[in-house]
């Protein structure tokens, strides 16, 4: 520490102006309760070889950063193509564009960062400072004066006495405070299950609704082989887009029989059964079908449904069997096509409070 001049308060402007910048810093710091307990130039003699070597290293780092940034600009502006191409359909060098600009940008940033840190570590004076915390509660006098301010203001308001004002203000403020919540929530709130296609209990399937593939083709019993599975939708407007409608049509293998739920033994048709594809746990399509074991696995949380037990959950977190769609077949132009006999008898998809 050099030239202690005493606390900043006792210095006149003339005296302060006489201090070197370093002395001024030290005096000022002391005024803030900060004491420099150790300060040493890393290179006390200016211009030594060691100092120049340190500077050169840092300068080199900055220079690399500069070059990397320039290279970034060059690459970005077209030195490397970035348009994607099919394999075998042209220049595949686009795959170098993003790695190059990312790593060049990273290099440039890293060089600035490393250079700055090296500057701090090698060239700035080694210093250790200690600062008074002045933590905890304020001085007791301050506390009392502060408290007095609050209390005095409170009594000026006279809120304690003027209970009529207090009550009515509270009413007004409270009601107004609720208004934004009401406005926002009220605008957004929608009664569940109300509106066309909004019921959690119903899908677009109904009596006579044909089963179709995603491209709209009707599904025929000749289409699937035993052990086959297809995703089908209700053949109505918007049916392939409805999130609760996707249905798994499964053709069982010879010898596989479904032990049906009560009242649903006749929901299948021939060796065909149809279950909702939407997992009753959290709504992912449960479509990993093991045709030999008859298990349907949902990939999200590993719920497993046994098709031969009417899609009853046998492992994992799901608790409800997949709803079963009642099937029948109609003849159109000599060809058989599947239709639904009615909607699913229960809500499809994940459970909710109102579901019995």
């Amino acid at each position, binding site marked *: 520490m050099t030239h202690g001049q005493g606390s900043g308060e006792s210095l006149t402007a003339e005296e302060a102006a006489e201090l070197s910048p370093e002395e001024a810093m030290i005096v000022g710091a002391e005024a803030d309760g900060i004491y420099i*307990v150790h300060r040493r130039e890393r290179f006390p003699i200016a211009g030594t070889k060691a100092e120049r070597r340190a500077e050169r290293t840092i300068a080199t780092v900055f220079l690399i950063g500069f070059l990397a940034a320039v290279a970034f600009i060059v690459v970005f502006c077209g030195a490397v193509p970035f348009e994607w191409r*099919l394999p075998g359909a042209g220049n595949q060098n686009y795959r170098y564009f993003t790695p190059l600009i990312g790593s060049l940008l990273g290099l440039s940033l890293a060089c600035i960062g490393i250079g700055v840190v090296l500057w701090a570590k090698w060239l700035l004076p080694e210093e250790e400072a200690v600062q008074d915390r002045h933590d905890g509660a304020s001085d007791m006098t301050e506390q009392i004066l502060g408290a007095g301010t609050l209390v005095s203001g409170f009594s000026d308001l006279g809120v304690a006495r003027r209970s009529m004002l207090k009550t009515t203000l509270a009413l007004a403020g409270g009601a107004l405070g609720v208004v934004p919540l009401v406005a926002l929530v009220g605008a*957004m709130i*929608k009664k569940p299950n109300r509106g066309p296609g909004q019921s959690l209990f119903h899908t677009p399937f109904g009596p006579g609704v044909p089963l179709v593939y995603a491209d709209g083709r009707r599904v025929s019993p000749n289409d699937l082989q035993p052990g086959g599975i297809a995703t089908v939708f209700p053949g109505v407007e918007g049916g392939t887009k409805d999130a609760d409608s996707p249905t798994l049509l499964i053709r069982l293998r010879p010898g596989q029989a479904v032990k049906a739920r009560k009242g649903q033994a006749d929901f299948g048709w021939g060796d065909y059964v149809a279950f909702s594809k939407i997992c009753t746990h959290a*709504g992912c399509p449960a479509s990993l079908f093991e045709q030999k074991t008859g298990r349907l696995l949902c990939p999200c949380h590993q719920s497993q449904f046994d098709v031969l037990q009417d899609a009853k959950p046998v492992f994992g977190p799901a608790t409800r069997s997949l709803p079963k769609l009642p099937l029948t077949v109609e003849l159109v132009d000599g060809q058989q096509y599947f239709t639904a006999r009615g909607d699913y008898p229960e809500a499809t998809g994940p459970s909710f409070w109102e579901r019995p």
Partner: protein
Amino acid sequence: MTTIDSADSRRPADGPTGPTVRGPKRFDKPRTPQGKAARWAEDRLGIAGGLRKQLNKVFPDHWSFMMGEIALYSFIILILSGTFLTFFFDASMAEVRYDGSYVPLDGVEMSRAYASTLNISFDVRGGLVMRQIHHWAALLFMAAMLIHMFRVFFTGAFRKPRELNWLIGLGLITLGLVEGFAGYSLPDDLLSGTGLRIAAAIMQSIPVIGSWAEFLVFGGKFPGTEIIGRLYIVHVLLVPGILAGLIGAHMALLIKQKHTEFPGPGKTEHTVSGERMYPTYGMKAGGFFFIVFAVCAALGGLAQINPVWLFGPYNPAQVSSGSQPDWYIGFLDGSTRLFPSWEIRLFDHTIPPLFWPTLVLPGILFTLAGAYPFLEAKFTRDRSAHNLLQRPRDVPVRTGLGVMAITFYSVLLLSGGNDLIAKAFDLSLNAMTWAGRISLLVLPPLAYAVTYKICLGLQRHDREVLEHGIETGIIKLLPNGEFIEIHQPLGPVDDHGHGQLGYAGVPVPKKMNQLGARGGGIRGFFYPVREKADIQAELDALAAQEALQERHRERELTD
């Protein structure tokens, strides 16, 4: 003090950059551009004293205090990269047929949100790297907050007076989870759309108000046509605004209360020591910002993340195997996979199994975490303020509880990817689920017990070294045939040869080269810094030079 001061070589020389005028006048009428700018600001704002006070603030510079900085800097990087993305992203769920550069999706029907994401990835120059930097920075933001939280927890920095900052930090983590989820759901691809479906199911699973909640958020039955637009506003305006405010409060508290520090020589509860903000600490912190940015940029270019074109647009009838959320939501995926198929049915109403692992469990975890500072203060009956940190070994109960919590969290996190682990290691998926369920209950108490014992062992070893000194490794054969190891005492010893230093919460040196006896060891990270002797030699040379000059001057005066 004389005005002729050629002996003081540190005084800036008078010349083009220094004043030739003495006294306060040179501050009234500055001549340099910097001086003029400072004059301009000072005349209007009067900031000299305040600025000096802030610039001189002392920050302890232990390495473990820099992890929160990673979180802060990645937040800034997220803002910067995110702003770029908002110029190109279209948060609309209107259906459109793709017509861009990525041929395998040509003609496919998709939402505008997905199409604009593909546009950014393939048809905007530099768009893909920006998307990737943004996503990597998000992963880094969450990871950094977590390790920062662990550091704060294990060193007891959350104790009075910093409980409020702990709560703000938990709020930041919670908001970060929401923000990240909203962000990766914006592209409306198959992977994140599956996550949205699950989120809808989670909302639905709330008792009594579940379907109302789902209909409110989605504007109807899933998926509706509103959700991406709403998530967009949450993601670019609402949550970043709250995050920025909370980060500001977090920093403001840090500035007011000042940072904690580890105990050591000269460290007290009422002082903080380290480096001043300007210039040293600011340089290091600023440099570190660039390093964090560099890591994000390098990852953004070199490692592909969230390749939405491979997943395809979201379709409620489609799903991919191996679907997981981003890592920071993974613990909820794990808890959902492990939770047994327990459903509550009451009089024609259902509480679905999804409710407990996705809403109740994180609720309990965050509540416990938030209450912890107050619970610990109550149980230890500790009402005093603390500015000095504790070594984890010195608080074995807290450390044990922390490790227990981390074990619990890790089992959940790993279980979130249990199908990938099953496939990679040829294990049965069913067995993975059961292993997760059992580990979740068995491993945490085991971890607590083991950690507690380890802490006690470390504490005992500290005291043993204080008492008996450091094992030097030098074996001596005594005349009576006994072999002993020579110990180096750490301080004065009593008649029995036992050290008399008490444990002070400071790391005890355990190796000879950590002592001053050998010159304090070699300093420097990548290669040795200049030895003290070299610096001392330079100082001696300087002193000799000054002495010589002084003698010359004296001779001149007397001549």
